[in-house]
């Protein structure tokens, strides 16, 4: 087995032993069922995947980035603090290789947690609910996995830049607050103040992975762009649903790649 795969396997093993990840998977599975029950207004599972997907969207947009940011932030800083980073880097592996392997292992573990959480709930739901909107539900699961990848990438960058676990995790919480709460508030404030154009609103959406994932999630449930207000009107007129989805998905991919590229470049130049 190559050293890269050995490191990936170690990272997955560590993640599997993490109570955070297992707790997330199980609690999210339960939440899928709870949402289905609550949103059906007492008629258990009557609305099936469609309503459940929409209801879970906001919850997933909060929980998934927080978990991925925190685990990413701990990834390198913990190794540095306990001294194992020096032991690892004294082996015949490159600094970039180590960082990418840690990210890959962490992301695979996050995907597994997302798949387990949503998969378990979805499986139970599928046993009693109409299967008509299953494809949208699966898109939503994929979206959560993509958001986890982007958030983990930002977390790993924080872990490299801030060096201590406490600082990196504090910064991760701060970034999470900005991405999930402050950014949207700031965007609304700017839009109200300077009556921003549709193009500006689109740019604002692309610059926040959570916002990009939120719009993609909405599109998965309701392809009519008008539900997005002024931004939706602009997108419907100028781009259309397909191009919009492609653009937002590209933004998510960029949010995976860009922090990771910066993290690798910085990490290679750092002293251990």
């Amino acid at each position, binding site marked *: 087995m190559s*050293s890269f795969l050995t490191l990936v396997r170690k990272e997955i093993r560590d993640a599997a032993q993490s109570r955070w990840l297992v707790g997330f998977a199980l609690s999210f599975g339960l939440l899928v069922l709870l949402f289905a029950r609550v949103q059906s207004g007492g008629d258990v599972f009557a609305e099936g995947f469609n309503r459940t997907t929409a209801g879970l969207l906001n919850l997933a947009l909060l929980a998934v980035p927080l978990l991925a940011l925190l685990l990413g932030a701990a990834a390198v800083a913990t190794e540095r603090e306990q*001294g194992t980073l020096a032991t690892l880097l*004294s*082996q*015949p592996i490159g600094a970039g290789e180590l960082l990418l392997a840690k990210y890959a292992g962490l992301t695979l573990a996050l995907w597994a947690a997302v798949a387990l959480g949503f998969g378990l709930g979805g499986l139970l739901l599928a046993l009693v609910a109409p299967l008509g909107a299953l494809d949208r539900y699966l898109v939503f699961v994929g979206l959560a996995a993509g958001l986890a990848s982007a958030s983990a990438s930002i977390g790993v960058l924080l872990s490299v830049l801030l060096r201590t676990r406490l600082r990196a995790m504090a910064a991760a919480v701060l970034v999470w607050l900005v991405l999930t709460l402050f950014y949207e508030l700031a965007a609304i404030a700017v839009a109200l103040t300077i009556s921003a154009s549709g193009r500006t609103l689109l740019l604002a959406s692309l610059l926040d992975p959570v916002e990009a994932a939120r719009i993609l999630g909405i599109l998965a449930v309701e392809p009519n762009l008008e539900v997005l207000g002024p931004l939706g009107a602009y997108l419907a007129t100028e781009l259309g649903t397909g191009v919009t989805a492609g653009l937002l998905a590209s933004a998510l991919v960029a949010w995976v790649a860009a922090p990771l590229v910066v993290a690798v470049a910085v990490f290679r130049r750092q002293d251990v």
Partner: protein
Amino acid sequence: MLQARAVAKSYGRVRALDGVSFELAPGRVLAVVGANGAGKSTLIKSVVALIRFEGQILVDGIDVARNPKEARRRIGYLSQEAALHPDLTVAETAAFYAALRGLSPERARECVELVGLGSVPERRVAALSGGMRRRLALAVALLADPPLLVLDEPASGLDVAARVELRRLIADQRAAGKSVLLSTHWLEDVPHIADDVLVLDRGRAVFLGPAREFLEAPAVESRLYLRINGRSQEALELLRRTMPQRSVQRLGDWVVVPVRAPEKAAILHSLVDEGIPVSDVRVEEAPADDALRRLTEVDP
């Protein structure tokens, strides 16, 4: 095997290493000694390419700064902290690092046995004593049977028996034609393990030469305490006569003799040969920082 040319490293305004050069041939052991903050660990980390530095370090002809991955294939490294993942067991730790180097689990087991941890393969690193953890880290360093061992304070935290075992292990490596670069605070260990010594003082090399020559420097002295019931005055006179250059003193029941490492046994022999019974012996090791500071002042 190892060549360092004008190696320098700064942390902000602090010059941690300042133009250090040396060579280490196959089958030789070089001890790097110096007071705290002298630059020992910085030099060791430079050799393993864990930090960026100025100058050039070649391991088996490979530039460690340009090709760290290839250079590290030839290096077994023991860090000062002997840091290993606390959640892994002894066996898992060795197997993990063996896999990183593309080695078999059998080789991992061999090295665990070699350092005397074969009886505790399922014990977690977190549950190991400091000495055991250091031995496991040494096993990790030995996994690839590397031509160059780089050991940062290998004797730190080891009991006397483990230190003796470490000396034997280093001797075995030397006999097998391997090179060993180690840093140490234990000046007493130097003549037993090293062929050559590099003394660092505030990042600069102030002595590079044979270990024996280094230990003959007057600054490197331990204090030998001898309890001689009833015949202390006789012993005092004998030692003052045979060692006129030393300041032999009486301190209560004890006779105190400043000695260099190889002289202790000879002093005991001289007393026994004169029929003077020694009822107790204590050694106060040379305080490394003080001794080295005096040495570097004497020999700039």
